[in-house]
């Protein structure tokens, strides 16, 4: 299949950046990233600079890949990361626009590569259970209801790719933050420090410069792991409760 690619090129964070057009011949069995590999091979052959994009596991779990394809993070197929998106979802002759994640809190490093350290900072603010190695009791000491563990898992499935932020017109990181708070809060081991966790993670999220949630639901639609915005509602609830319960004046 013959395609026209409109790819965002930007030298560094300060550069203004612009689209560059490429013609490319792809097979429908290729993944989107393999198509990008072919493009880069062509560029290198012409001694031009290849398009920088992030990728690693190429099986939809590491969360590295990050491309907005025709306006949609990770492209048109629901519940799928860019690396697992295959070209059979496009038609011969299509023009495909590829842009980086857009959010102030995710500054562009080069071309399609952005800096997502803000997510690490949010986790560092409290996205953990405060238990040292060696302090654990037997794994079966606390039974956990199967459905409860399963709900926690649904939230824990987040791969930290940032598609939620990219999709959100407000560049809000609520889904990412809420998913971690839900995962930990739904497990008895993480329940104990939930009040403190929700306060500090939300504060960190705001400090990192993410926008406010206006419940457009774009995050949920574009999340490759289909994490529900019910987690955001849960976080809101816990946040209000924690604020009211907090001893801080």
């Amino acid at each position, binding site marked *: 299949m013959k395609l026209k690619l409109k790819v965002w090129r930007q030298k560094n964070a300060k550069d203004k950046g612009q689209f560059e057009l490429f013609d490319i011949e792809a097979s429908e069995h290729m993944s989107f990233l393999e198509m990008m*590999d072919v493009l880069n091979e062509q560029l290198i052959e012409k001694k031009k*600079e290849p398009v*920088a994009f992030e990728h690693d596991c190429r099986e939809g779990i*590491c969360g590295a890949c990050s491309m907005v394809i025709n306006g949609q993070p990770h492209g048109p197929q629901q519940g799928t990361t860019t690396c697992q998106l295959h070209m059979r979802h496009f038609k011969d002759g299509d023009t495909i626009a590829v842009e980086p994640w857009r959010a102030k809190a995710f500054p562009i490093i080069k071309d399609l590569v952005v800096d997502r350290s803000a997510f690490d900072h949010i986790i560092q603010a409290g996205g*953990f259970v405060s238990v040292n*190695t060696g302090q654990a009791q037997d794994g079966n000491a*606390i039974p956990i209801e199967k459905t409860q563990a399963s709900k926690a898992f649904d939230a824990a499935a987040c791969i930290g790719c940032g598609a939620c932020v990219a999709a959100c017109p407000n560049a809000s990181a609520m889904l990412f933050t809420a998913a971690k708070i839900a995962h930990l809060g739904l497990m008895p081991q993480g329940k104990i420090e939930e009040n403190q966790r929700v306060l500090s993670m939300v504060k960190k999220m705001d400090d990192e410069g993410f926008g406010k949630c206006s419940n457009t639901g774009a995050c949920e639609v574009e999340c490759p792991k289909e994490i529900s915005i019910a987690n955001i509602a849960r976080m809101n609830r816990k946040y209000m409760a924690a604020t009211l319960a907090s001893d801080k004046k």
Partner: protein
Amino acid sequence: MKLDSKIPKGELAEKWTKYRGTMNLVAPNNKRRIEIIVVGTGLAGASAAATLGELGYKVKAFTFHDSPRRAHSIAAQGGINAAKNYQNDGDSVYRLFYDTVKGGDYRSREANVHRLAEVSRNIIDQCVAQAVPFAREYGGLLANRSFGGVQVSRTFYARGQTGQQLLLGAYQALSRQISRGSVTMYNRHEMLDLVKIDGKARGIIARNLLTGEIEKHAAHCVVLATGGYGNVFYLSTNAMGSNVTAAWRAVSKGALMANPCYTQIHPTCIPVSGEYQSKLTLMSESLRNDGRVWVPKKKEDVMAIREGRKNGNDIAEDDRDYYLERRYPAFGNLVPRDVASRAAKTACDEGHGVNSTGLAVFLDFASAIERYGKSEAHSQGIENASSAKIKELGEAVVEAKYGNLFEMYEKITGENPYKMPMKIYPAVHYTMGGLWVDYNLETNVPGLFALGECNFSDHGANRLGASALMQGLADGYFVIPYTIGQFLSKEIRTPQIDHNDPAFNHAAKETEARIDKLLGVKGNQSVESFHRRLGKIMWEYCGMARNKEGLEKGRKMIQDLRKEFWGDVFVPGTSKEFNPELEKALRVADFLEMGELMIVDAHDRNESCGGHFRTEYRSAEGEAERNDEDYKYVAAWAWINDGDPVLHKEELEFNNIELKTRSYK
């Protein structure tokens, strides 16, 4: 060089406990002053950095990723083993130890494996305490499933994303230490050299991947947890970035590489579909719990399938060869990976492969769907359920167990595995070989430690499923935090290491020169094309089956390819910027040396064992034939630039397990 494994004296079951109780300690006031560099933040690295931080050491952790959460441990699907015996099916520490040694084809150290089996139980406890959402039974207790090569159910799992959940647990523990300031995190930093002062590992040279700056980082010791080298094959289930560079740089500074030829070929991967393919995708081994592997018996059926005139469902039951069940009735579809992979290769070599390339076999869930459907119909009280209803109920059960894997298969191949049998083929997955380490996980370079897939220690010649996660976390959470004290207790008088020591400056200069040399070639071929060619040589001559002539030919080809690489590679861009092609070039340059060493090791080992299968050494039935008399040793190699690698042997002793021909029949 005499390799001292430093295995403690005493009864096997007592060794670790006694050793731990008598090891040298570092007092808290000294820990605060002692710096440790941890390179790699996957399961082993993150758990080690977090735990060492908790203990009070000053830790500096490095990853080439943008975040520790992206390490390839995240992609492990099936599960993690632990000798908990929660299923009451006769599991024990000894049994896990025994299964692992046997599964490894008697090429691992008894004492290390026993320790691994002992601490496996603590790992589960620790991970549960971190709120890892493991699968549970209705009563709320932890669920288990079976994996290949064992007859008990000891694998703990979190759907098909166990590695992800365990890594996030370790990442979160690490994040906690970062926020407390006990660990300083260096994201997007790649280790490009090891720095030794007076023979001891004292730091690293790292490239800041964003700016291209060459940085010098000093510490009292260095811990490598940088994973395996499966990407030497170009096509593998490893992530694109997984590489051998950190370990190989250590080798170039005198560390020994042990058993490099032991490569695990995983039997259930999605077959290659075209030349452009960049990586292979694994379908978890857990699928072999319920999937049955087969090929058509008749050649005309094979041809019909290859030409698209028939599909798997059209083949009558009697015309199918469930070759694993036929050849290995005791373990059936759950034979270890090396056995299953070779059997698939044999079936395809005999002309029974079921896709257009002839390199695929079926993994069929039809009978599992029917079995589960019937049982579900029974428990729902549906009498005389129609076959459609049974199928529907059965598919729901299978979906609950393997839903995400089936979905992934469909995304990649465009075929629905609930309706059509999956097509699978073996692919490179894991490397059992790695840096030689003693019982303390210390390499032959004092102060240099290696953990997880990066070392060679626990899996012998073949790793059992769900044991990689176990080993990574065992090393990081429960072994290195103790054993590192054996080295560091002697270092409490060592002042802070100065990163302006001449050794650092020298290493930094060397690294810069190496980079400049690469950029200066300005040839005509891309890094990728060299990597692809290297992979083809490795797969052809040092893959699932090897022989003397092939290995000799392969070695020559790699040497030529390496020459060509340094004469004609084209690396765009400059060194002082974000330059992914340069990163790749540096990694491929090291793979080009590592590949040769693998071939040398494979050539030297005149036997078949585990993942190393020499066609000259097989029984009449085609099974691997070990040679315990001559090769019951760990082959630890020293790399000599432009010369022949030098072999150092560590004899393996088996005092608790009788060496037998591995049989799964």
